[in-house]
Structures are given as C-alpha cells and as structure tokens.
C-alpha cells in the first residue's frame, strides 16, 4: 500500500479474527485494528475529516487556531494534522489524564489547558465552550456535536467493514462522543437492516462516580438512541480483565477501553451461542496500550492486582 502523504494513510485498517477469544467456530469475533492509524488511534478518522470539511466550508483558513475538549486521542490526531497543515492547536483536557497523553500532545505542538478532574470530559467540554465564547476567532470543531465526526465513520470505517466481512451481524464500539457507533451503525444498517449495533459504556467505581456526579448531565449532541440495538455497561474490572486476555491470548496490545468493547462483544457472542445462532461480531480496537503503560495494568502479576492499580482512574 502506497500513499502520497502521512495524512492520506488514515483508515484502511486490518480486520482480524480472534480464534481463541471467539465463543465457537460459528460465533466469530473480529477486531478492527484502529491503532494502525498514523497517530495510533481511531480518532485520526474523525479529526482529519472534521478539519477537511471545515476547510471546505471556509471555517478553517490558514493561520487559524483550533480548540477542542479532549481526553487525549482526538487532541493527538488534531495536533498532528494541525502541525502538518499549519494551524495552532489548543486542547482542553481533564488534569487526571495520563502523562503520556500530555507529552504526545506537546510533542505535536499542541497547547494544553487543564480542566478540573471532577466531572471528567464533561467539565472539559464546559471549559472549552467558555473559551470558545471568549475567543470567537478560534475554531472549535467540537467532536461531540460535529456531524463530520460520525460522517468520517459513515464514509470510511463502515464501508471497510462491510467490504471485508459482508456477513457481519454485530458491530460493537465504545460509547464516548458516539461518533463511531452513529456513523458505522447508520452505514451498516442501510446495507444490512438486521445488523445489531452495540454500545460499550464505561462504568467507573464509586469513587470516580462521586466525582462525576458533581457535574450536570451531558449527552453528546451526536447521540441518537435509535441507531443502537443495545447497550452494555462495563466496569473497570471487566475492562482490565479483557484487555489482558486480548494481550495474552491473541497478542493484541490495546488500550483499556478496547477491553470494555471486547467484553460487550463476548457478551453478545455468548447470547448468540445460547440462542444457537451464528454470528460475525466486529469490535473496535480504539487504540494501542502504549499510552496506558504507566497504569501498570499490563505488567501486574495478576489480573486482581491490575484491577487494583486502575481503581479511581479514568480509562475511557
């Protein structure tokens, strides 16, 4: 495969079957390896698409400043694209996200404005909206409400999955901005009306919940419940357990939110097995484990210890 520039190499990621983690020969689980994108996460797709659409609309012009609330990956993708395209990049990020993420953003020249840990991403969104009002000349692409976020997946991720696996029955992804689920979900359903679209939502322990409770409710503007078939709520312990199984049994080194998506994929797989149905279940490996190495979840001697190390931390 040959491309004319690094940005042109976004997408066209491998889809690999997981022979050991699939529940049976007829209920197969497939991993869409989005960590193979240029900056190492699925967010390269919406970041590049949102920038290019804003350029087409004339909202983004040379010398502009881009502002975005992000817990990491979208900021990293935007920072890389902004650097190559000559924009200034400002990220609003919760102060309790990992050191690796902050260094990656700084490495690509992004400026970071920390938001209070309490309320997590919700607070980052609020702070970014306030900054946007103070700096009307800054361009906030706003991944939570920008149709081009879902549009990127409708235009690329969905068609890639259908082309590689026409027999797909389930699509599973993490629920954050909801862009992946909305975009892929709409595309697949147009071509396969019976396809099941499954969300894996992170569930934190009581400590982090307490923090998040301080904030007001926030539902991304992109979210349309009618696209989803069902929703799984995945706790930290299951997310860590699956992340380690993916590494140990299939050799895939993925971030912790991917473990949550895998847990939901195995959940729907078991239901299919019980019902005597065959299934081809695709789930998204949103990023690699590199940015989460400092959490210690990969190197802990036992899964119990790994779960303990993640207590109270945001992982999606």
């Amino acid at each position: 495969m040959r491309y004319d520039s690094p940005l042109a190499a976004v997408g066209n990621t491998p889809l690999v079957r997981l022979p050991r983690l699939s529940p049976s020969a007829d209920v197969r689980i497939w991993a869409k390896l989005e960590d193979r994108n240029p900056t190492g996460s699925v967010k390269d797709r919406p970041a590049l698409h949102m920038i290019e659409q804003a350029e087409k609309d004339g909202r983004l012009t040379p010398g502009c400043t881009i502002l975005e609330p992000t817990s990491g990956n979208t900021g990293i993708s935007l920072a890389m694209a902004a650097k190559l395209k000559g924009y200034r990049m400002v990220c609003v990020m919760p102060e309790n996200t990992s050191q690796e993420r902050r260094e990656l953003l700084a490495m690509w020249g992004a400026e970071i404005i920390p938001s209070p840990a309490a309320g997590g991403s919700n607070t980052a969104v609020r702070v970014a909206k306030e900054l946007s009002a103070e700096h009307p000349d800054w361009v906030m692409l706003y991944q939570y409400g920008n149709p081009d976020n879902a549009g990127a997946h409708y235009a690329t991720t969905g068609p890639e999955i259908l082309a590689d696996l026409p027999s797909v029955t389930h699509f599973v992804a993490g629920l954050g901005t909801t862009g992946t689920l909305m975009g892929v979900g709409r595309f697949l359903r147009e071509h396969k009306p019976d396809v099941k679209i499954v969300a894996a939502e992170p569930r934190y322990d009581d400590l982090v919940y307490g923090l998040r409770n301080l904030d007001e409710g926030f539902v991304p503007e992109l979210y349309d419940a009618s696209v989803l078939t069902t929703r799984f709520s995945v706790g930290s312990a299951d997310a860590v357990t699956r992340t380690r199984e993916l590494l140990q049994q299939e050799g895939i080194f993925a971030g912790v939110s991917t473990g949550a998506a895998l847990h939901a994929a195995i959940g729907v797989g078991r239901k299919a097995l019980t019902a005597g149905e065959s299934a081809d279940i695709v789930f998204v490996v949103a990023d690699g484990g590199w940015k989460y190495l400092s959490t210690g979840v990969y190197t802990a001697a036992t899964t119990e210890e790994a779960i303990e190390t993640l207590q109270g931390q945001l992982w999606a």
Partner: protein
Amino acid sequence: MAIEVRIPTILRQYTDGKKAVEGSGDTLADLFTDLETRHTGIQARIVEKGQLRRFINVYLNDEDVRFVEGIDTKLTDGDTVTILPAVAGGMA
C-alpha cells in the same frame, strides 16, 4: 435458582452494607419481589408502578435491560444483575 445481585452504595442500607446479595426469580420483577422478602424496602427504591424507576439502571450480565425486556427480562441461573443509580453525564 441463584442470581447474584450487585447493590449500589445508596441501596446498601437495605443489605446491611453488603455490596452483593443472592436472589432468585424467573424475571427481574420476580427477583425484586424475592429480594424484598429479605431486604425490606429495597423493591420500592427500584420499582414504581410495576416499572423500573426512571433514575435506576439495571444491567443483566452488563447489558442494559431497557434494551432487552425491561422489568420482564428473563433470568437464568448464574446470571449477574447490577443495579445502579442513573448517573448524569455517564456518556462522555
């Protein structure tokens, strides 16, 4: 038929502080009736007029039962039911 039920902090006043209890029933509605026999008061905090309360989420093996059959969702031996308060802003 044993179902493990995970209890959120705000409802542990009914379970002597226990994080998880066992119950039985063919459906979620039956399970909550069964729990009430040992944990008086808990049912009314979860169920209202025969339906799940609006600000309570219930998960069967981590799947949101509102996307299955709600309070009529069928249970099987060995299932895990998780009860959680609906958290504002739990989606981003």
